[in-house]
């Protein structure tokens, strides 16, 4: 529980109604979307302004109380689970779109803004914000920035990081500063914008962000390529890229994922298929048509059973919405779904898909795979039950081997979900001891007392690297 003096101080800053330490509130902010992680914070605090955040951080820094900035709690790496207690900072009172600048093509927002609401607002002005994490209807921009979220359009447009021009940051010592600005070019000093994007709330608190917008693409086409062989689908992915076509979206879903998604969405997905590719291209009409023809030809060469272009915008939207529900729909099958996002170079997607299936067989666990195949970013998802301790051990072994394989192929342990607490034991596999040391140095420079989201990113103990056996 929060010390009563500290509580009084916090109430003095944000007002009585914005500090809550009832068991109801503490429980409701004890989790995010990561299975098997839950821990009650000491209090939930809802600041109204940057100034209030500054004062809160100062109090917490002086009293060495952990601070966990949280958006809508949809992350998948236990990034906002307050595993060491402390204060959860909630930004539902700092949720305004401050400005849409049509001359500089930027939008400036507070961290609590819901991603989709911002996207809608800029689209009304004919502008486009490409990062589209599957949770965008729920997630906040603050959450997206801290996790450096990806999405379905990452292949052509990149991820959140590529659209952040400047931020306002509060450090634990109470210092407030701005980085970047509405600038296409800016090399004044270290690129702190990029450092904070994806820092998972471990360095400071982002209280404002200016994001880059692009003109709305003229047109968009969506197609579904159906395969009765999972390898053929995976090979198509590498071949499309090798043919110098970069679609906006190139998603992969395997057979079991298709089944559960169809069970939920009921839009007539081909549940008989072994795998499908969901492909989207946007841009000028003639370019889109030319690219789609080329992609269609490649799919057919790689033995797709059929390739269909969506007939209407509604049909296209339904396909993408269905894809976004994949993870949660998989939860229909078993009580617990544990998903990873091992990522490999695009050319290695087919090898990775094959390895995942072999590893699942080896450990006798059920793994479904879907994901942003065009990005080399797969989401192997394991259907299990946390109550089955024996199986859980095997699941962990399987995932360790998947990580190791990804790294062996020149990939990484996480493409877009973040390290959080969940993957922290494996960070060293990717970075090496020296890499971790460099990162720890950075962390200490910004947050010497270690109050910012403790327990995340850096593990107390790193896992011993497994030797890949497949």
């Amino acid at each position, binding site marked *: 529980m929060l010390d009563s003096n500290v509580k009084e101080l916090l109430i003095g800053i944000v007002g009585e109604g914005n500090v809550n330490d009832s068991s*109801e509130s503490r*429980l409701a902010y004890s989790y995010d*979307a990561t299975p098997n992680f839950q821990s009650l914070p000491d209090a939930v605090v809802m600041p109204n302004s940057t100034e209030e955040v500054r004062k809160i951080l100062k109090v917490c820094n002086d009293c060495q109380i952990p601070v966990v900035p949280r958006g809508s*709690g949809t992350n998948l790496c236990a990034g906002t689970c307050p595993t060491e207690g402390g204060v959860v900072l909630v930004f539902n009172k700092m949720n305004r779109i401050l400005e849409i600048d049509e001359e500089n093509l930027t939008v400036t927002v507070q961290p609590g803004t819901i991603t989709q609401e911002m996207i809608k607002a800029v689209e009304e002005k004919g502008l486009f914000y490409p990062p589209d994490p599957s949770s965008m209807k*729920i997630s906040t921009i603050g959450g997206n920035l801290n996790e450096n979220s990806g999405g379905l359009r990452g292949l052509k447009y990149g991820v959140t990081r590529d659209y952040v021009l400047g931020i306002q940051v509060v450090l634990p010592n109470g210092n407030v500063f701005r980085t970047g600005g509405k600038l296409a070019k800016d090399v004044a000093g270290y690129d702190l914008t990029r450092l904070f994007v994806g820092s998972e709330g471990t360095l400071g608190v982002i209280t404002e962000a200016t994001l880059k917008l692009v003109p709305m693409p003229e047109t968009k086409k969506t197609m579904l390529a159906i395969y009765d062989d999972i390898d053929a689908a995976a090979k198509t992915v590498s071949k499309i890229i090798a043919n110098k076509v970069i679609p906006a979206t190139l998603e992969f879903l395997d057979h079991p994922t298709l089944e559960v998604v169809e069970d939920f969405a009921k839009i007539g997905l081909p549940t008989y298929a072994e795998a499908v590719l969901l492909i989207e291209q946007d841009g000028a009409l003639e370019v889109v048509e030319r690219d789609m023809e080329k992609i269609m030809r490649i799919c057919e060469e790689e033995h797709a059973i059929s390739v269909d272009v969506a007939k209407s915008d509604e049909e296209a939207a339904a396909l993408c919405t269905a894809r976004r529900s994949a993870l949660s729909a998989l939860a*229909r099958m078993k009580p617990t779904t544990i998903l990873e996002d091992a990522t490999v170079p695009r050319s290695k997607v087919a090898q990775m898909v094959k390895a995942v299936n072999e590893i699942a067989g080896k450990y006798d666990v059920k793994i479904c795979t879907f994901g942003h195949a065009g990005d080399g970013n797969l989401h192997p998802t394991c259907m299990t039950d946390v109550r089955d301790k024996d199986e859980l051990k095997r699941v962990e072994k399987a995932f360790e081997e998947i990580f190791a394989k990804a790294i062996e192929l020149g990939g990484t342990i996480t493409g877009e979900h973040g390290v959080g607490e969940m993957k922290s034991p494996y960070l060293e596999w990717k970075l090496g001891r020296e890499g971790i040391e460099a990162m720890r140095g950075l962390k200490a420079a910004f947050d010497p007392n270690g109050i910012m989201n403790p327990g995340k990113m850096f593990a107390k103990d790193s896992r011993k690297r497994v030797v890949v056996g497949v």
Partner: protein
Amino acid sequence: MSKTTMQQELKERLDYDELMNCMRCGFCLPSCPTYTQTDLNEPASPRGRIALMKGVVDGLIEPDEDFEKQLNLCLGCRACEPVCPSGVKYGHLLEEARDVLAQRKKYSLPVKVLRRVVFDELFPKKDRMRRLNGLIWAYQKSGLQGVTQKTGVLKVISRNLAEMESILPDIPSPKQMKNRPIEVRANGEVKKKVAFFSGCLMDTMFMKTNDASIELLQLAGCDVWIPETQNCCGALHAHSGEKEQAKRLAKRNIEAFEMEGVDYIISNAGGCGALLVEYDHLLKDEPEWKERSRKFVEKMKDISEVLVELEFHKKDLSLLPQTITYQDSCHLRNVMGTSGAPRQLLKAIKGVTYKEMKGADQCCGSAGVYNLVQQDMSMQILDDKMRHAKETEAQTIVTANPGCLLQMKLGVKRKGLDHKVKAVHIVDVLLEAVH
């Protein structure tokens, strides 16, 4: 009851697999009216409430006053269910938890007596429902209503009660309520044989709407039976923590409708239909009722679905030129899965410009007795709803459930729009359009 025994009981009654089935992705959050109305307060969301229930079961928190308040703040609209990719049956968890809380709650004596009268003596018994409505009829006809409204005596008791009283429909006379049809024949060729669920409130206060429903079914080509021994569906009971009584009512209804050769059992109230269509779940612990409830449930349909199936929308339907908007009944949409058919029927009427209201799929705040027990939240939601309704510039707001209908009337009145906007049940609109 001590907190530990309450905890124990919740542990026994709540389906742990269902609690685990929520993987906390948060896809439900934007659909939840109370989450939106509370500035995105996590405990007031479906994900939050499930976590609270699981937290109690796991022993992480106690079932304290906050816990109970939070469960009571839920409208029970179940908008979170169709958007849940994992398919969590939130409504079932809520109902079970509320039942435990209600059974263990120490109500004050007057409340206890009132609950017994309403739940055991009034709604389950048709003749008493008629008698009560008869009293309201007398009240309306005798001029007493005028006096009450002028003096504002009800406002002293409760602002909402006063407002509710003023929007009650004209109650049919006791004689009319007694002479209900039992069986009517199709007009022309018989396409379907159906049984009609008349309900308690619908067959008294909204009797004209029931009559309209039966007439529409005849026009669509249905032979219609209205079993005499049927009774209240039990929804009010099930949602208020009176599950045992709800089960008794369900069994009587299943018996009443066990007749050969009936294609469908039809309801015209989303609130009733949603419970009727879940009788199999309600009686899941009673194996001897498994088959009987399954048969009943399989035949359950909302009237709008059957009318579309029988191509009623292809008939010559017309009304004076007007804009119409449709407010979904939550339980019709989220539990019975009916949302397209009513819209299709309304769009088929010549002279009607159909305009979809923003957030038509979100609860209006009526939610059974929610608008009486959670006035502030209910009115907050209703005022938002009316703002969206006004944006459509519709002269007619159509609904498919009596609770929603009264709430719409209340909303129209609150906004001071009573002279230019009316709220009606869909079957009344259709009957007017076909004549």
